[in-house]
């Protein structure tokens, strides 16, 4: 027994002398690395920088809106600010946030694999991300973009701002996203370990797989749209330009054929993260595993059929509106299936309010509001009234920020010890989560009210009757900023002061918690022990390790692959 204990300490305990962070040194070893973990970390640094930049732009916008008249931003600059805030948040931050940053790190380890299927393509997609971001920054510095993140024609053809640089950026970022998705699909398909069938995969993998399907199928349409828009501006093709016989609404169709599924590129991985967090931190087997798995695929497929609901007021036939409206409601079904399953998982679970769990609970609450307010927007009669008001702004911020960002933060706290081998300060993390939750609601809930009273979006000046709502919103935005700063501070401080993390600090049963924290270059130094990903009986606390280890039986067969029956010996 003592040998086993020693073994466990070695295998599941603290980081071995060499891990992927220390395995090789120097800038070149990072810039040319093919290791999915390092690429994930580089993505993480990149997307967090983009988030900070776009977040600062958002704070500037909210400051300007504190009084009804002009404070310090001219109308033109206001247009540029909200365009860049939206474009950077959507294309540079949210879309790659969970799949490319967290997913790159976690997905292969969850599969017990050494790497993704195409490590070089993985690095290439990171550099494409860098290249696309570079063009975005370029478009910001030279005659900043002012079209809104949607690039609607004909204005995007006429404006003198840097549309070409921005669409080049979108084009390149699109291919970064496509290659990430392609890599994930192939990795999940061909590199699952023997014994891990589709329905023994952790739910995050299902979510990332569904996301990858959308990335591969939808993003090329955005790429061709961007290309056509560029050609329209440079050559004058007359495909979108009404002056040359083109159809500007066709651009909207093309754009939303990508950008609506892109909404699910943003939210599906978040749902996957939440499925993990809820189950692990309430130590209860996930309720309705197969329903959650299938609902991910259902959302991915239905997401392709609803783009027309962005154009209810753009001149579609009533029949088309009716169909798109009905299809839009149908997306609510798989989303609701997930929410009910999470709540059912929490029921009678042993919930610990760790920081990731705080974020996960916030997610359910905020995503609930965000999802339900989508229904009036999908109904023609109410949408005509609410279209292009702050109600829409509040709705998608509840989904994108209250959903994706919150889940991203929860996932980041959950996997942070795995990534860097350090535990963060739990109290600080919880405080950050609480302030983020309060600040977020303070910012966006008033926007529902003013939107339903007719405050249009994208306006630099507004009627004084909305002032109180805008002021609450601005105060909320500052609070949200403080909460995020606290969360960031807690994470960064853990790198210096945090105590060393065991391999499995959360009693999680998925494979990434079977390797050391941080993992070694090859992820696993031993044959993986494949359990049900949500079977918490197969995990036990080991004092010597200071964390959780798989339950092992001395007589266990070598190469113990599927081990569904947990045995309670210590």
């Amino acid at each position, binding site marked *: 027994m003592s040998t086993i204990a020693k073994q466990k300490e070695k295998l599941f305990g603290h980081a071995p002398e060499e891990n992927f962070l220390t395995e090789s040194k120097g800038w070149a070893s990072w810039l040319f690395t093919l290791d999915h973990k390092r690429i994930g970390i580089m993505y993480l640094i990149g997307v967090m920088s983009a988030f900070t930049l776009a977040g600062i732009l958002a704070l500037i916008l909210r400051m300007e809106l504190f009084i009804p008249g002009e404070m310090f931003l001219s109308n033109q600059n206001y247009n540029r600010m909200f365009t860049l805030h939206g474009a950077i948040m959507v294309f540079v931050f949210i879309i790659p946030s969970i799949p490319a940053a967290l997913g790159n790190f976690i997905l292969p380890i969850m599969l017990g694999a050494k790497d993704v299927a195409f490590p070089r393509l993985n690095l290439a997609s990171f550099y494409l991300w860098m290249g696309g971001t570079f063009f975005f920054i370029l478009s910001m510095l030279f005659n900043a973009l002012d079209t809104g993140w949607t690039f609607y024609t004909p204005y995007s053809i006429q404006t003198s701002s840097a549309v070409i640089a921005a669409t080049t950026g979108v084009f390149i970022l699109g291919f970064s996203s496509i290659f990430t998705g392609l890599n994930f699909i192939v990795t999940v398909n061909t590199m699952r370990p023997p014994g891990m069938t589709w329905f023994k995969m952790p739910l995050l993998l299902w979510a990332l797989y569904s996301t990858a399907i959308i990335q591969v199928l939808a993003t090329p349409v955005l790429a061709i749209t961007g290309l056509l828009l560029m050609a329209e501006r440079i050559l004058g093709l007359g495909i979108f330009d009404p002056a040359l016989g083109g159809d500007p609404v066709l651009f909207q169709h093309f754009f939303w054929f990508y950008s609506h599924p892109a909404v699910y590129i943003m939210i599906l991985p978040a749902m996957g993260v939440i499925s993990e967090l809820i189950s692990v931190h309430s130590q209860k087997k996930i309720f309705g595993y197969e329903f959650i798995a299938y609902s991910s695929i259902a959302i991915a497929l239905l997401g392709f059929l609803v783009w027309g609901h962005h154009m209810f007021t753009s001149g579609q036939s009533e029949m088309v509106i009716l169909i798109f409206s009905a299809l839009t409601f149908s997306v609510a079904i798989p989303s609701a299936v997930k929410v009910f399953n999470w709540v059912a998982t929490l029921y009678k679970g042993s919930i610990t309010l760790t920081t990731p769990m705080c974020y996960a609970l916030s997610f359910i609450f905020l995503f609930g509001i965000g999802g339900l307010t989508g229904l009036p927007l999908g109904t023609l009669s109410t949408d005509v009234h609410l279209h292009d008001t702050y109600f829409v702004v509040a709705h998608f911020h509840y989904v994108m920020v209250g959903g994706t960002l919150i889940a991203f933060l929860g996932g980041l706290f959950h996997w942070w010890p795995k990534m860097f081998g350090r535990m963060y300060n739990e109290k600080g993390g919880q405080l950050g989560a609480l302030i983020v939750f309060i600040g977020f609601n303070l910012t966006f809930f008033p926007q529902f009210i003013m939107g339903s009273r007719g405050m249009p979006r994208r306006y630099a000046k507004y009627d004084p009757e909305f002032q109180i709502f805008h002021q609450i919103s601005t105060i909320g935005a500052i609070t949200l900023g403080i909460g995020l700063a606290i969360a960031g501070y807690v994470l960064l401080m853990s790198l210096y002061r945090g105590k060393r993390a065991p391999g499995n600090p959360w009693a999680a049963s998925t494979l990434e918690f079977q390797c050391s924290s941080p993992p070694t*270059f090859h992820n696993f*130094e031993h044959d993986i022990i494949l359990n049900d990903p949500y079977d918490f009986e197969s995990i036990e606390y080991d004092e010597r390790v200071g964390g959780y280890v798989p339950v092992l039986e001395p007589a266990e067969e070598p190469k113990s692959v599927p081990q569904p029956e947990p045995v309670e010996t210590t």
Partner: protein
Amino acid sequence: MTTADSVDESNHGHQNEFHIHDHSHDHEEHPDGPFIAHHFETAEQQFDSGKLGMWLFLVQEILFFSGLFVAYIIYRNHNPEIFEAAHVHLDKWLGGLNTIILLFSSLTMAWAVRCSQLEQYLGCIINIVITMVCANIFLGVKAIEYTHKWELGLFWADAYTYGLPQPENQNYLLWLSLPFIVITLLSAGLATFYRVTENDFWAKFFLCIAISFLGYFIGLGIAWAVPAQEHGGHSSDHAVHGSDHGHADGEKHEADDHSGDSSGEKSHEGESHDKSDENHSAKTAVPSESVDTQAGPSVDESTVDEASGEVNMGGFFSIYYIMTGLHAIHILAGIVALTWLLYRTLDRQFRKNYFGPVENVGLYWHLVDLIWIYLFPMMYLIH
């Protein structure tokens, strides 16, 4: 990586507990061969992954083109008369020739894949080179087609100047051909250089490249030769080109001409009339087509042309250039990929358990072929 050894020590008595991985030999060759990556268990797993990845990439490619196909459908639906009027400017014989060339290159590509599976080194090289020659012939023919239209002012919507006097001395063809001339001469020179310095590998490589790019000039030659026989739109374009002067006038009176169009169409009235002139010469050049081309436009033009006045065929050519242009870029990418294959084949890197790259480039090449198979009837064979 070194920890595995120390763990192994303590683990020794209980080997039946775990299999500790020993990565110390990791930087050596994979047991399945030098080209199997470390994170794959077997050559088969790597092949399957590569192939699935390629198929997904092809799906992505199809969706990339799908936007253009949708744009085509919508514009053809909105403005059928533009498509009817414009397609006669495309030479269906050159288009058909290019279709046959691409189909043949798909055959040689598939043959190259088979050769690499069977480790038939020479056969693989020959087939790859033939495929590249075909790709270059295709581009040569395309270059003639493009430059001929540019000389007539048949540009995309905004630059469309058909029927107006064209600037003199545009060397469109020379500019398009310049990269091909440079590459051919450069690779021929390098081939000679390496032959002289007895560097066999690079001599062979550059010889193959030079031969491949000669295909472009074969394509130019064929495309020049075809109009010499009396065929379709292409030769009629020449006739129009010759009487360009008359068209400047014809364009001004177009609206008037169209008013009599429905009757004038069949009775061959108005020699200065732009469109009926086009249809007329097309019909006389290819008598067998005359029935088909007559039926469509005469109905549409009577209804639509009056309303829209000067029909700017640029709408059609916008779609034509963006679709065929993107397709040509894909051909160029294919040539680059084939060059990479050529290098690796000459280096004898492919073997029975490792021919994935040839197979995958082959898949890509078939897709490029397939897209052309759709483009050809959509653009050239409109009735």
